[in-house]
């Protein structure tokens, strides 16, 4: 079954969607959308470094994403606004990554594969990394769910319940870095934030509790991956962007549905 490239691609897409769903909810609730975007852009530098040092792209991307998060935390509150710091770091890292890749003369690299993903070329080894990473992210978030939720609602509330919001922030940052690293192959660094945010945002109008929003987001992400791949196959379109297009259509559909329901139509 895993011999079929479409099956592998579908499994990879669904794996990323599952990890991105609960994490994406927190990204939306905490208004970290730009932070997720920046982490993903910075991963390009990680890709370049991994290729240069001939190590796993997953590791390189995780490390650069974490370094990026640490730098952001260091620089904010020192005279620069968060979005300025993110804008500077994200695009510099992306640019340096692209330039660095061009220096790697010995290796022939398809840049597009890293920018927009190369879902149809997913190997069994990639699948293992993607599902391993996704399982790790889901386990991390599930085990700290109550604490993450409390810290998201109110910092002081978290402290008074004996929690440390900084630790919860760290868990989210770590999850984000892992998700970005496993998603590069699937949607590429430019569209990772879309996989985080769009399914979660689409799930909002359906959900009454945080948990149901995460589950709806996972379902919407999974459906987008499956339907997007089928569309890509049928119409010969790029796989990653097709998945995001389906997710965006679902977002629009559920949004209109929710609006009609609220207005009694």
């Amino acid at each position, binding site marked *: 079954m895993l011999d079929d490239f479409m099956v592998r691609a579908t499994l990879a897409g669904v794996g990323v969607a599952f990890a991105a769903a609960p994490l994406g909810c927190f990204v939306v*609730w905490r208004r970290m959308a730009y932070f997720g975007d920046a982490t993903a852009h910075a991963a390009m530098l990680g890709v370049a470094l991994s290729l240069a040092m001939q190590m796993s792209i997953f590791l390189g991307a995780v490390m650069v994403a974490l370094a990026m998060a640490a730098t952001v935390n260091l620089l904010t509150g020192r005279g620069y606004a968060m979005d300025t710091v993110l804008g500077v770091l994200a695009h510099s890292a992306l640019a340096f990554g692209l330039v660095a890749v061009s220096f790697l003369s010995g290796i022939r690299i398809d840049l597009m594969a890293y920018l927009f993903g190369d879902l149809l070329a997913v190997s069994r080894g990639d699948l293992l990394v993607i599902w391993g990473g996704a399982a790790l992210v889901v386990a991390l978030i599930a085990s700290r769910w109550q604490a993450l*939720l409390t810290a998201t609602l*109110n910092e*002081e*509330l978290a*402290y*008074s319940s004996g929690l440390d919001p900084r630790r919860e922030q760290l868990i989210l940052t770590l999850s984000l870095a892992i998700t970005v690293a496993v998603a590069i192959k699937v949607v590429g660094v430019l569209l990772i934030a879309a996989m985080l945010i769009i399914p979660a945002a689409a799930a909002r109008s359906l959900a009454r509790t*945080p948990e149901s*929003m995460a589950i709806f987001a996972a379902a919407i992400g999974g459906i987008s991956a499956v339907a997007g791949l089928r569309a890509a196959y049928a119409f010969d379109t790029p796989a990653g962007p097709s998945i995001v297009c389906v997710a965006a259509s679902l977002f629009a559909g559920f949004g209109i549905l929710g609006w009609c329901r609220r207005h009694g139509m």
Partner: protein
Amino acid sequence: MRRPGRVMSLINVENLSVRYGANTVLRHVGLTVEPGEIVTIVGPNGSGKTSLFRAIIGATEPAAGRVTLKPGLRIGYVPQRLHIDPTLPITVGRFMRLGDRVRRQDCVTALDAAGVPDMLKRQMSQLSGGQFQRVLLARALIARPEILLLDEATQGLDQPGSAAFYRQIETVRAETGCAVLMISHELHVVMSASDRVVCLNGHVCCEGTPAVVASAPEYRALFGTGTGGALALYRHDHDHDHSHDHMHGQEAAE
């Protein structure tokens, strides 16, 4: 001081200083809260009230001094504002179960005690300001706290609303015996309900029963013209409560 060595203080703040960068917001602050008492912190804006709270719950590292909590102290915290992002769907029932292993029956009991029954299925975003604050109070009560911390908990409520809220606090204290430490601007309302008032302005300016603090020159210097009205209301409230007045007199004499 009043119960020497018998019961451990719930909160003991010694010589606390808090700094943000070069800015010292609290200097050598001392404060204790005993089981069952209602203590109110008053002070102008920027007097360090919220910093003191943050230091007590461990959200701010003291620059000097220390904060000792009774080991295993159960704190019920009611924040000043709780902004729930519109993208976060959450029902009252789910909000109440934020802690570990909260039973449904406890939610119902706590909502009743806070004066907002039958709200479990409502979305938090659909509550009025008063209902929202009462749900926050209910959530704080659910873990059967030994002390309630209220940080300007009635901000955004109208006068009758906040008066009703503080009556609810007194009822809760009477029923559960928990101590209350609160910050408030509404001097006349909270002072009449307090056992002890601490007037803060970067340091503790004065401290004592409401009557003692209200007549202290430091307090009058801080609150100026507004004090007359607050004091009048305070006295009015207690005209009819002789035993209460008497108790205050005793404590003031200590």
